[in-house]
């Protein structure tokens, strides 16, 4: 399992209820189901992935987070997970608001557009960045709203969203992000992992 998922799973307390938004093929869900809490459900847009999840015995709803999150009642889950999907939404702000409304805690991870390799691509090669966490070309990327770790922290601060844990991930190494090292982490991290509360 990828390091990102391990960090997410470690952030979740035993037997709490969890909604995994954009759960993909259910890899993280299955791990959480078997090791942390069986009160986990998923929302996934791809039919093929939903089929794989059902095969794994996971409860998943086929749907589009931007349209279907609104049907979930407020405070209905202890945790809501959104792994590397925020940038693919037409309206990420609306999705974040829904996550905060539905979950007591939201766990959001983002591929960091401030990572030096990304900047290097654009600065020296003059092309849209293609990296390990951003594998698509400009013409086929699902990503509509890329942001950097710093962008996301600013976004939360401006909206008074309580960011109570911020982690950076590079080459499977985890470190904490704080206001003193934000610029540095924004340059050196591939991925940001954030725990949010209203």
């Amino acid at each position, binding site marked *: 399992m990828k390091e990102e998922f391990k960090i997410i799973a470690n952030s979740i307390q035993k037997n709490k209820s969890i909604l995994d938004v954009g759960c993909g093929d259910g890899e993280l869900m299955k791990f959480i189901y078997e090791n942390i809490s069986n009160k986990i459900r998923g929302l996934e847009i791809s039919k093929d992935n939903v*089929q794989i999840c*059902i*095969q*794994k015995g996971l409860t*998943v*709803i086929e*749907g589009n987070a931007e349209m279907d999150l609104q049907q979930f009642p407020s405070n209905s889950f202890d945790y809501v997970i959104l792994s590397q999907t925020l940038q693919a939404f037409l309206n990420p702000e609306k999705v974040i608001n829904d996550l905060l409304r539905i979950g007591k805690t939201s766990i959001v991870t983002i591929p960091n557009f401030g990572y030096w390799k990304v900047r290097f691509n654009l600065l020296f090669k003059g092309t849209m960045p293609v990296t390990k966490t951003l594998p698509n070309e400009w013409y086929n990327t699902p990503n509509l709203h890329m942001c950097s770790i710093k962008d996301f922290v600013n976004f939360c601060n401006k909206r008074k969203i309580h960011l109570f844990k911020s982690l950076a991930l590079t080459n499977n190494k985890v470190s904490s992000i704080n206001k003193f090292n934000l610029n540095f982490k924004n340059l050196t991290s591939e991925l940001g992992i954030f725990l949010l509360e209203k």
Partner: protein
Amino acid sequence: MEKYNNIKKLIINKPLKLDCGVTISDYPLAYETYGNLNRSKDNAIMVFHALTGDQFASGKNPVTNKDGWWSYVIGPNKALDTNKYFVICANVIGGCMGSYGPNSIDQNSGNKIGINFPVITINDMVNAQFNLLNHFGISKLFCVTGGSMGGMQVLQFVANFPDKSKIAIPIACSASHSAQNIAFNELGRQAIMADENWKNGNYELENLSPAKGLSVARMAAHITYLSKKGLQEKFGRKLQERDKIKFGFDADFQIESYLRYQGSIFVDRFDANSYLYITRAMDYFDLSKNYNGDLSKVFKNTKTKFFIISFTSDWLYPTVENREIVIALNAINADVGFLEIKSDKGHDSFLLDVPDFINSLKNFVDNSYKKQL
């Protein structure tokens, strides 16, 4: 009527007050079972049939000699694996395969009940079938499932008995029959009633049958079970056993011939009055009616785990109507999964060999059973 003699029947003594106000008792409920009930009686699946289905969901139907309507789904190693599960399927009341219906004999007159049969609802059908749990000594079913009107019965079952099935799989259905669907049912009923042999519903007394009307009803309904794309691909404008059009009203096109055939074989196995009563029951189906339109409240106390399935090309019970059930269940934080299966086969997809559908169904059922053990 000899062919109906070997049908399994349970005579239900317990009175049942129907929604229309009439109370029935000592009425027959015809059923069939597949597989074996295990010692702990935790492997029972109740399957509900659709409008023109019956209790013969698998194997050979002894009356029609055709394969059961859900043969792709029920059987050894199939999605509802009869090596593992005990599958029960009953003919709905109002039906014509041995359960209490318009072609049952009225004990007083010795004639068929016909149009004097009380108007029934989906709720009545489910309450009648619930007696089978008692009959088999099953305190809780493992699963209730069915498509179309069968799916409506699944929803009604969970609404009536929130803790009597571990899982529920309503397929290609709706919690409230739409205006379009009522319209199609009305078209079918009017076709039957317009047949001069219908005789205000008393055709049996004169040994007649409104076969033309029933056949037209079936033809119209059959179109709604398919998709435009499916029809186009299968028939297009292909001609029936001729090179060119004949400038007449004979069946020039294959689609015409196909529909005529579907109509003609249907009248051999189905009773016209049953068709009126069952379509009416579907029209009256509106689960949230008693809860001010709030479907969530219908399922408020449910402990059942749901898996809802719809099909992309089903325009009779479209995905959006199936989704309304998902939304209502989500709103009360019920355990619900949902999948829309890609298929060009229209509403009929749930009866056909659609691998994605059958595999999902099997995976969900088997995984849920594993977790129970």
